[in-house]
């Protein structure tokens, strides 16, 4: 790092303070933030920056303690209590409070908004299986282009599908509303999603899935696992020897007041193989 502002004593002291303040963070996150802040200072300051210039840059950056607090996991949002506070305070008779209270409500709403927007999306869990026994019995697993794939013969005009477990890593309940508008299953566009209502935090075999009740919308509470079933009526036309599959799910998910599309990357492709028999489109 020779010949950069990072050698300036004020910067060195700041980075040492940063190390100490970031001790409360997960090591990976602390390393990453230190790298980002260091790069910021390296970009922002010329190598021959004077004390005043360096001090001003550090002040703009914020104190290490503040940065550590900002990087710490966010507290549970107070959104649930905010509306009550909002309503109660509107009855106050002091006009001077009103502006502040409204802005407080805006701030809580905005904070709520960003917390919702940045909530970690649903992730794939550990267990999965073809839904119907006749598919499970004929499933062939193979590796293609570095990806794992499970393939079953298409049963034209009939329902086929699979079930996976999904985990909600966020601090918010995420409610699966259905497939994204543009999502098409391996057998056709008519895809039905269902979420089981039980927390499945244990290792599962495929047979465990079937007795569960699946419904939509399906809520996944924070840090819990649910079984998610994907069914479709196979109408796709596949030639003999051809295959069609998916390796990700696009779901419409509601978090708080926000509905967004979340993509769940699957650990293997779920595919159908031809030939189609009977009517297909």
């Amino acid at each position, binding site marked *: 790092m020779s010949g950069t502002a990072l050698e300036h004593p004020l910067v060195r002291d700041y980075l040492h303070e940063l190390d100490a303040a970031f001790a409360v963070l997960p090591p990976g*996150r602390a390393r*990453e*933030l230190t790298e*980002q*802040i260091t*790069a*910021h200072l*390296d*970009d*922002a300051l010329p190598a021959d920056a004077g004390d005043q210039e360096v001090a001003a840059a550090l002040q*703009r*950056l*914020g104190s290490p303690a*503040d*940065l550590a607090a*900002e*990087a710490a996991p*966010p507290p549970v949002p107070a959104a649930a209590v905010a509306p009550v506070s909002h309503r109660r305070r*509107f*009855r106050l*008779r002091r*006009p*001077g*409070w009103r*502006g*502040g*209270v*409204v*802005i*407080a*409500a*805006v*701030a*809580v*709403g*905005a*904070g*709520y*908004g*960003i917390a919702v*927007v*940045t*909530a*970690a*999306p649903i992730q794939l869990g550990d267990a999965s299986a073809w839904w119907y026994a006749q598919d499970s019995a004929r499933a062939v697993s193979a590796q293609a282009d570095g990806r794992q794939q499970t393939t079953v013969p298409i049963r034209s005009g009939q329902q086929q599908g699979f079930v996976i477990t999904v985990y909600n890593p966020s601090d918010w309940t995420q409610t699966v509303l259905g497939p994204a508008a543009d999502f098409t299953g391996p057998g056709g566009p008519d895809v039905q999603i269902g979420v089981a209502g039980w927390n499945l935090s244990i290792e599962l075999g495929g047979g465990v899935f079937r007795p569960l009740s699946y419904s939509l919308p399906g809520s996944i509470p924070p840090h819990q696992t649910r079984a998610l079933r994907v069914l479709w009526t196979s109408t796709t036309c596949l030639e003999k020897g051809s295959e069609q599959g998916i390796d990700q799910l696009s779901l419409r998910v509601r978090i708080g*007041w*926000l*509905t*967004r*599309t*979340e*993509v769940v990357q699957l650990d293997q492709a779920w595919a159908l193989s031809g030939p189609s028999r009977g009517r297909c489109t």
Partner: protein
Amino acid sequence: MLGMTGEGALTELRRGVLGPCVLALLELRPRFGLELVRDMAEADGLLTSEGTVYPLLNRLRDAGLVTSEWRDEAGQRARRYYSITDAGRRSLTAFRAEWAQFSETVGGVLEHRSGAVGPGRKERS
């Protein structure tokens, strides 16, 4: 005028809208850290502390709304560039719609345009 409640609320307000603002800037083109910070700082009063952008970027990336990659451009030091993802664009679109409605509602209250402060809640002077 606002007192401590108002100032604290404004700070929270700034923090709350930073994420969508970062996404809006990245929607135009990828940016590296200092570039993003400076563009944010140009929006007067939005950024109280430059360093807060980085934890925010990391949260956005964890949420799949932003990606980052190192670029080593000729004559310049390697820099980490941040880009918005498709999920980020969708979230931004959703936030814009919600924010427009939300700010309109609050604006109505502040300007006494809506029925939020109705006759039953009228101030007595």
